[in-house]
């Protein structure tokens, strides 16, 4: 699920790569500080993007410290230090990861999802206590999505709408909590379209597995002509590109109407280039993409 909102390294300045990494490591370190080591595994690029965005939008500049990395103890890196906003983003990540695993257990089952779920459970309970409103939002939207899946909905918009709303509502809640402007219509439109984009990428990534195991996938239901992944993507290219490109473009337009200063270079790299790049990789790939390392 998480790894679709990434920078385009070929266009990325070193200072912005360092910033992205500092926030990525910031999530990892903050998770370790408040919850422990196992939940650090949930650190991902998508929550890193959100971490950068929220600090930039709310104009909260974190402290950076040169520290060791748990996986590479000989290398020191600039790491964003825990603050109350980073803590909230970290909690949101745990909630999203837990509910995503729960959804996978319901939809696909499988030992790996069940064991991951049980390992995360006590940490989830802690994050839920600290960010209960976000947990409520995520639960509601997953319920709506489950209902649509049971109906075998072939509507790309109806299904991705749940994710769009989920992300928007969670982000607005955190922004409001930190006294930021949560009424900005471009902010709402931006995250709504980012949420839809993530849903689409995940569904396109999972085409082969979902077809093989007869699991719900809105693209499979809409086009009904799956035989092989590459053939399916080629046959339905213009329709798929329409749905995803219009979503990415709406996200770009909304982003351009937000006034962000610090971190703008990194964020615009991700929004202008990263989203399209990832979509291109998924469309041209014969297998799952989300394990790409940045």
């Amino acid at each position: 699920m998480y790894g679709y909102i990434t920078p385009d390294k070929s266009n990325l300045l070193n200072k912005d790569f360092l910033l992205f990494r500092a926030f990525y490591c910031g999530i990892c370190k903050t998770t370790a500080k408040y919850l422990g080591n196992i939940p650090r595994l949930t650190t991902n690029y998508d929550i890193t993007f959100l971490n950068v965005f929220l600090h930039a939008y709310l104009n909260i500049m974190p402290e950076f410290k040169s520290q060791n990395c748990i996986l590479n103890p000989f290398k020191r890196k600039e790491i964003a230090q825990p603050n109350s906003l980073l803590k909230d983003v970290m909690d949101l990540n745990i909630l999203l990861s837990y509910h995503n695993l729960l959804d996978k257990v319901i939809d696909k089952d499988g030992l790996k999802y069940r064991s991951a779920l049980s390992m995360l459970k006590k940490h989830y309970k802690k994050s839920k206590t600290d960010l209960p409103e976000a947990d409520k939002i995520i639960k509601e939207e997953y319920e709506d999505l489950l209902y649509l899946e049971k109906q075998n909905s072939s509507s790309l918009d109806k299904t991705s709408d749940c994710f769009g709303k989920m992300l928007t509502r969670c982000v607005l809640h955190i922004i409001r909590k930190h006294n930021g402007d949560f009424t900005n219509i471009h902010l709402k439109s931006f995250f709504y379209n980012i949420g839809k984009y993530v849903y689409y990428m995940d569904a396109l990534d999972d085409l082969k597995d979902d077809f093989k195991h007869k699991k719900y996938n809105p693209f499979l239901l809409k086009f009904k002509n799956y035989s092989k992944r590459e053939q399916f993507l080629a046959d339905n290219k213009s329709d798929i590109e329409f749905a995803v490109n219009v979503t990415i473009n709406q996200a770009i337009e909304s982003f351009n109407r937000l006034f962000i200063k610090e971190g703008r270079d990194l964020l615009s790299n991700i929004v202008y280039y990263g989203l399209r790049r990832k979509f291109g990789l998924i469309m041209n790939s014969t297998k799952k993409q989300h394990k790409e390392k940045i």
Partner: protein
Amino acid sequence: MVQNPYEILQVQFDSSMEEIEASYKRLRAQYSEDRFLEGEAGRIGAVNLMNLENAYSDILNTRSKEKIQSEYGTDLGEIDRMIKDGNLDGAQIELDKMSDRSAHWHFLQSIIFYKKGWYDESRAQLKLALNLEPNNTQYQTALSRLEQVMASGTSNPYTMGVPPEAQGQPIPPDNSMGLGNCCTTLCLLDCCCNMLRCF
């Protein structure tokens, strides 16, 4: 007992506007004189004149609404107004009530979906509208804009959504929250890190 406005005007329900206007003028002239009669006759004349004016006004309003409805189909003009006022939920409820799904019905549905951010559904409705009216240039232009402009994979991201007067304005420098200032040694050491060992 409330009287039928057509009875007051002394015309048939399906009389033309010219016939109704002629009858109105004739009766108005008569009642205008009657109201100056003495006693009860004068009072009746005044009441008749008032009823006549109200009935004529009612018929004018009803006939003009019917004209809009006949151009767009049943109540679609009203739904169009609701969409323009931003009442998408109300407009959707009214659209759902209608069993007759004309080209214009699909066009209005596509606008509602568009405003909700449901672009795929919007496109599907535009295509349905065009199926029913292939030569409608309004629908053709809308679909073409949606597919070629809004869904372009190659448009310049720097100018999308930016008003023309703001384009080309210098972008304030971004110090990457202070990391843009980190010492050269640190930058050189770190340039070979590629987060490979991170999850």
